[in-house]
C-alpha cells in the first residue's frame, strides 16, 4: 500500500491525522443502566427486608436493629455509587477513525483506549434482553493478548453498532487484499 497514510475521523473530510473526539453514547443508555441497577438493588433490599420480617423464624429484636442499621448504611453507599455510576456511564463515549476505534471512559480517572483496526481479531455485536427492549447494542472488539481487558463499547443504537461493525469488516478486507 503506497497510498498516503491518513487517519481522519470517519464521515469528516480531512486528509490528515486528527485527534479522536468523543461521540456520546445513545441518550437513553445511562438512564437504562442506572434503572437496571436500581431495580436490582431494590429487589435485593426487598428480599432482605422480607427475610427480616417473615414470621416463621423470628429474628431477635437486637439482631433486627443491627441488621436494619447495616441495610440502611449499605443503601446509602450503594445509592451514592449508583449516582456516581450514572455520571460515569454518561461520560463514556467513542470515536471511529479510519484506522482505529477509540473508547473514552472514566470520570475521575479518564481513559482513552485506542484499538487499531489492523489488530482486531474479531468483532461482535452483542445484545442482552434489556438491550433488545430499548434498541441498544454492545460492540465487542477482540485483539490478541490480555483477555481480561476486552474492548467493549456499550450503549450504541443498533444501527450505529452494525454500521461500525461493517466499516471495520470492510477495512479488514482491504488489509487482507491490499
Amino acid at each position, binding site marked *: 500500500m503506497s497510498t498516503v*497514510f491518513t487517519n481522519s475521523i470517519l464521515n469528516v473530510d480531512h486528509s490528515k491525522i486528527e485527534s479522536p473526539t468523543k461521540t456520546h453514547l445513545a441518550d437513553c443508555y445511562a438512564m437504562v443502566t442506572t434503572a437496571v441497577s436500581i431495580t436490582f438493588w431494590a429487589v435485593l433490599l426487598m428480599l432482605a427486608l422480607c427475610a427480616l420480617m417473615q414470621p416463621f423464624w423470628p429474628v431477635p429484636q437486637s439482631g433486627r436493629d443491627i441488621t436494619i442499621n447495616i441495610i440502611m448504611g449499605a443503601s446509602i453507599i450503594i445509592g451514592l455509587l449508583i449516582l456516581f455510576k450514572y455520571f460515569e456511564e454518561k461520560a463514556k463515549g467513542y470515536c471511529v477513525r479510519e484506522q482505529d476505534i477509540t473508547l473514552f471512559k472514566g470520570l*475521575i480517572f479518564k481513559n482513552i483506549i485506542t484499538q*487499531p*483496526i*489492523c*489488530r482486531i481479531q474479531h468483532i461482535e455485536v452483542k445484545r442482552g434482553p434489556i438491550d433488545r427492549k430499548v434498541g441498544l447494542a454492545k460492540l465487542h472488539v477482540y485483539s*490478541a493478548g*490480555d483477555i481480561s*481487558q476486552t474492548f467493549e463499547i456499550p450503549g450504541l443504537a443498533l444501527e450505529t453498532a452494525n454500521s461500525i461493525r461493517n466499516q471495520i469488516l470492510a477495512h479488514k478486507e482491504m488489509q487482507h487484499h491490499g
Partner: protein
Amino acid sequence: MDNSSVPQQTIDTITENNNRWHRVSPLAILYYIEKLFVILLNNIFYMLPALFVLWDKIQANPWIAASIIGVLLSIITFFSIWSFVVFRYRLSEGTVEVKSGIFSKKHVNLPFNRIQNVKIEQPFYYRIFNFSSMAFDSGGSLNQEARLIALPLSFAKTLQIEINEYKSNSTNTVSSFDVNNEYQLDSDNSTAASDEVVENTRSIGDLILHGITSNRLYILLAALAPFVDDIFSFAGEKLEGMGIDIQAHLDNDPAWQIGVWAISLLLLVIGLMTLLSIIGAIIMFYGYTLSRTHDKYIRRSGLITKHEVSVPLSRIQIALMKQDLLDIVFGRINLRLDQLNAQISSVNAGGNDTSKLLVPSVFAYECRDIIEHVFPSHNLHNTDFMAISKRFIIRYVSFIVIPITGVLSYSSYYNEGLSPMVPIAVFFVLAVLVYGRWLRWGYQINETYLYIQKGLLGRDKYCLPITKIQKITFSQSYFMEQNKLASLKIYLASGSYHIPMIDQDHAKTIYDYVLYKVESEAKAWM
C-alpha cells in the same frame, strides 16, 4: 478397533496411516498418572492445615489413612487408564486431530500451518523407553492446544520436521530447511534442522549462580516474620520433647553464646534454602542450550524431565531483562523472550517457566546478542531512560503511605502495646521504598522500540517493538490533568505494560506515534 500400535519412525507411515484413528502407547498411562499426581499435590498444599488438625486421628487409625491413600491411588490409576483408553489421534493430510477426555470430551483439529509451536517433552519415565510427548499450540486460545502423549521419540522428531516442512511449503517461501531425516536415537546429542546454531549454553556454575540469585528467601523470611513467635514456641516445645530445654539455656547461658547460636541457626536456614533453590535451578536448567535456526529459537534443558521449546522469532512479542538484587550484585541478567499470552499461561501453568524462552543468569553482552536476532538494532542494554514525574512519589505517599501510617498512629494512640515509634518507622521505610520505586521507573522511545524500566530492589527492563503493539490506553486522573501528567498502558499479545505519570504532551506524542506506526505499517505481529 484393532490394536493399532504406534506407527514406526518414517514419514511414509504417517501418510500411509491416513484417516485412521490411533491409540498411543500404553506408556501414556504414566503420563496421566503424573498429571493427576501433580494436581493432587498442588491441592494437598491447601489441605495441609486440615491434615495438621487431623494428625492425631490419623496416627490413631493408620489403617484408615492407609486405605484412604490406597483408594486415592487406585482412583488415579483407574482414571489414568480410562483417559488412555479414550485417547485417539489421527494424522491426515496436513492436520493433526486429537480426541480425548472422559467427562468433557474434547476434539481438537489442528491444521499443520496453524501450528505455531511444537514442543517435545521427555519426562524421566519416557526417557527409559525413548518415548516423548508432543505439544502443539496454535497461537489461538488456550483450549486449542493439542497434545500427543507417548510417541516414540524418533516418530515425534520426524513429525516435527514434517510439520515444519509442510508449513514452509504451504506459505510458498523457499525453505532453507535442509531436512535431515537421519536421527540419532539417543536424545542427548540429537540435532534438529541443519542450519541450527547453538547460541548459548549454561554451565553448572551459571546454574548454581542462578539458584543463588533467584532465591526468594528474603520474601519467605518477610512472610514468616509475623509468625516468628509462634514458630519459636512451637520449635521450643518440640525440642523440649527431645530433651533440650531452650528456656533453661536462654536463662543460663551467656548472651554471646545465644547470639552465636541464633546466627548459626539463621545461616543454616539460609544455606538450606539456597541449596534447595540451587537444586531447583539445576533440575530445571541442566544441560541448557539455546539454539537458533534461521527463523526460530530452540531451548532445551532439564535434568529429570527434558524440555524442548521452539519459538519462531516472529512470535516473540517482547524482550525482558530481569535482575533481582543479587543479580545486580553479580552482574547477571535473566533474559526472557515472551510470546503470546505469557502472563496468562504462566498463571495457568502454576508459575512454572519450562515453556518460556528464558535464558538464566547471562551477561549483558550475551543478552544483547540474543535479543539482536529478534529485535534488530535494539538498544535495551544501554538505554538512557527518562524519569517519570516526581509526583509519582507524592501520589503513592499521600494515597498509600499516609493512610497506612494514619491507621497505625490511631491504633498506637489507643493501644498501649504499640510504640509510637512504629508508625514513624513504617512511614519512613515505605516512603523510601516509594522513592526507590520512582528512581527505577524509566521510559524511552525511538523509531522502532519502546523501552521501559521498573523495579525496586531488582530491575526489569522491557523492550517493546512498536509495530507489535495491539492497543494503547492514555489515562489521566483529575489531579494528573491539573499537573499536565498522563499515564500510558500498552497492550501486546504477551500482556500489558504500564508507564505511569509522565508529561502529558510527551504521553500524547508517544500515543500518536504508536498508533501511526502500527496503523501505517500494519506489520504482522506474529
